[in-house]
């Protein structure tokens, strides 16, 4: 079987396709080389494996965050509730604030691994980075889960869809259904 040729690039079509893949929104937090907190908004957080509990996300290698996402370091993943679009905006750079100044948006407290976790989020997860893989423009960050902080799990989630963020509540369970 012969390998397929490298696919032709249609960036606009590809972007359009990915924009309609609705996804949850999270803030990934870590520390820079002087140990000051840093964070970015991510729609790429994905469950990876159950054994060991692990997840992955991707960061643009030219972004300010990527150099600090290296094996052995701690990261916090705060999964946003529907009313936290302003925090997502701040950590996506919409307010112009950079570095630790972004943490003025949202109510942040210290997790057990010293990384910031967001109060009012649906859930926060503390991880250590197990491995990073640089591929194309992005860094794939594979994380081992150390601790899960359940938060506002019953609140609507913040969903990125078609280039916009919106609050989305799952429909109520039918009577008698188990969670």
């Amino acid at each position, binding site marked *: 079987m012969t390998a397929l040729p490298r696919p032709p690039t249609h960036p606009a079509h590809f972007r359009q396709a990915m924009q309609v893949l609705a996804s949850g929104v999270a803030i990934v937090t870590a520390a820079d080389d002087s*140990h000051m907190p840093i964070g970015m908004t991510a729609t790429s957080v994905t469950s990876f494996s159950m054994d060991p509990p692990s997840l992955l996300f991707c960061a643009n290698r030219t972004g300010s965050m990527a150099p600090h996402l290296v094996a052995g370091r701690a990261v916090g993943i705060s999964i946003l509730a529907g009313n936290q679009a302003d925090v997502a905006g701040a950590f996506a750079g919409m307010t112009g*604030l950079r570095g630790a100044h972004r943490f*003025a948006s949202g109510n942040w407290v210290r997790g057990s691994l010293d990384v910031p976790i967001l*109060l009012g989020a649906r859930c926060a997860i503390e991880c250590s980075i197990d491995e990073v893989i640089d591929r194309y423009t992005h860094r794939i960050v594979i994380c081992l889960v150390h601790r899960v902080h359940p938060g506002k799990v019953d609140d609507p989630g913040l969903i990125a869809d078609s280039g916009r963020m919106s609050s989305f509540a799952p429909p109520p369970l039918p009577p008698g259904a188990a969670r």
Partner: protein
Amino acid sequence: MATVTKPHPLKGPNRFKLGIFSTNADGGLAMTTVEERWQARWSDTVTAAQIADRAGLEFTLPIARWCGFGGQTHAREWSFETFTWAAGIAAATERIGIFSTVHVPLVHPVYAAKALATVDHISGGRMGLNIVCGWNPAEFAMFGATKVERPYDMAAEWVRIIERAYASPVPFDFDAVYYQLTSVVSRPASLQMLRPVSMNAAFGDPGRNFAAANCDYLFSTFTNLEDGAHHVQDVRARASKHGRNVGVYTVLHVVCRETEKEARDYYDHFAVEMADHGAVDEHMAKKKEFANSHDDEAFNTYRQRVAAGEGSYPLVGTPEQIVAELGRIAEQGYAGAALSFVNYTYELPFFCDRVLPLMEQAGLRIA
């Protein structure tokens, strides 16, 4: 490590937040000789904090005084130091936010970092810092402290050191204009990140620019409501240059009674007839704008406000009148107020029972 599950009370849902101010010092904010004047014994200040805590008020804010205003009562000479006071209040309350009021030139940032973190842990993330940069010659002479040229530049370094001390698990050096520190480490760090919430009170350009860049809240007094709106707009404009939001609060002295006549009569009784005139004179001697206007109605009004609440804005009347006035203050853009009473433990229960439900009806508070 303890996991904090609730945001700091000042980040809670109420549109207009409330706190009590200066319960750690004798007289509270008043300079009066009435028998029921605030004595600020430890049991007094704890009881006031507990009443406010159970009523759902957002914060208790102490003043930092090292010497008093003199007068017959030696006003404010008796005051509890605010880090140790905050530690005690934190242990005696459950949900109210607690501040320490700290003079930057008198307290080393490495000491402040550790004390602040200690109370943040005692309180489960309810601690806050009121950063004071002003220069009071009489008080600073007690410390043999030397006046600095640019106190707010010093304060900016001071805050950076605290933030870095919390962030860094390994020792770091700090070398700037005001501080040269070697191998700084401070554990535990605060539970709140980057640090406990912070506020300051400032009118001038350097102070307001410092707050805009470094603080979460700014306290500003006003003489009349129209001026109040200008202060809010000014602070918002400065903060937005930094991409930040700074909540603007004010200070109000309260006399709340069943009838307007009772409230007015008591206001005149404690703050005119029974004012501690010596202390008021000493306080006003610094207010040069009033020095040559002794017959002026504005002067007398201001003098009464100084005796009642160190020049803050009055909230005098029935519960209904007070809520209407609070509504007007909220409309100017204020996010909340620190309140003073002649006697907090006598007067807070009536205020909380009668004013808070009306504030809910008025849409100023939801809980």
